[in-house]
Structures are given as C-alpha cells and as structure tokens.
C-alpha cells in the first residue's frame, strides 16, 4: 500500500524534498516506516533527536498501524513562537 510522507524544516533539508509517496507493507507502523526511511535516505540515519509522529494531521504513537493513503509527518522538535 502507499502512503504520503511530508518533510518539514530540518528533515526536509536532510531528505532534499518536501513530499514523497512511499510503498510499504500492510500492517506497517509509523515506527517501521521511519526505520525504512532511514535506509532510503542515509542523511536521516544519524538523526537522533526526539521526533513526534503525525498521521492525517493528528499526533499518534509510534505503534500506530498505517493505512492506505495516510499522510505521515515526522515532526522534529517544534520551535514556533
């Protein structure tokens, strides 16, 4: 199945693009997807910061099971204000 992944700020610069579509296995969690992306994008591998996970514009836990067409965002430490 396919999901949409958006990258912002620090992660966008590391990945080099703001949005990709990614084919993943049924039953993949958000954490699984992040592990896969770290292999796809070597520049993500050293990222050690605490990330939050958002699916369809809501924060979710790392064990959230993804569904077809979900919009996934890995949220680096926010610093608005």
């Amino acid at each position: 199945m396919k999901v949409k992944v958006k990258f912002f700020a620090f992660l966008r610069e590391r990945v080099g693009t703001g949005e990709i579509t990614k084919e993943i296995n049924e039953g993949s969690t958000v954490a699984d997807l992040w592990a896969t992306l770290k292999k796809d994008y070597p520049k993500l591998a050293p990222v050690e910061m605490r990330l939050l996970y958002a699916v369809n514009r809501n924060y979710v836990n790392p064990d959230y099971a993804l569904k077809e067409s979900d919009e996934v965002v890995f949220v680096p430490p926010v610093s608005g204000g």
Partner: protein
Amino acid sequence: MFRVIREPIDLKELVTYVTDPSAGAIATFIGTTRNNNEGRRVIALDYEAYPEMAEKELARLGAEAKQRWNIQRMAIVHRIGPVQITEPSVIIAVSAAHRDDAFQACRFAIEEIKKSVPIWKKEVFEGGEVWIGTQSGQRLPRR
C-alpha cells in the same frame, strides 16, 4: 481566529476580533525577532510550518483555553517565512470579563505553541544558520 500566514501580522485586526462588550480585559502577547540569541548576532528568523496541522493545533489549544478559563474570544496568528529583527512572528490576543483569565489564557497559549504546534524556526545568524531545537543538547530558546 487561528491562522498561519506569510504576510506581516496585523495586531489591530486581532484586537478588534477579540473585542467584546462583556469583556473588561484584553491581554496580548507579541513574539518578535530578537537581534541576539545564546551569544550569536541574529540576522533574521525563518519560520516554516505544517500549515494545515498548525492551524488545527492552534484551534485545539484555543478550545482548551476556553474550557480552562472564563474567556470571551481568542485569536492567534503565526507568521511563516523570514521575520526580520523587531517584526512579530506570533501574536496572541485574548479577551475576558476579568484580567486574571485573560492573562492566564494568553500565557498558556504561548507556552503550548512552543510545545505542540508544528512550526519550526531557523535562526540565521552571523556565520551560519541553525534549526532551533534540533542540535543535540540545545535547549529551546526562552522568549
């Protein structure tokens, strides 16, 4: 009114929005770009947002503030893109019958923005740039 915009923020518009005949107090907070941070000379801040979710989170924290305090209206507008020294990056306005509620809800809003709203700040300083909060061991800046 909970918005993420690219243009300069209009303080007057927010205050007019929250003005209410049953309110005796309006508290506002304006976050501005400061010319220094942790010993660096700052040239500008450059903000990026996940705009749809950021507006949703701003509205969520506005709803939470309304549950916790006796307030009339709240407006939060965050600017994205480059924000020069002295320019506002965020403005919060809250009206309430009594001042204690207005102050507390305003303070709550800015603290929550810094915790949960998907907006990021790149600091452009003399000699480089950095996404605030991403450096290992770096504290989030107080503002």
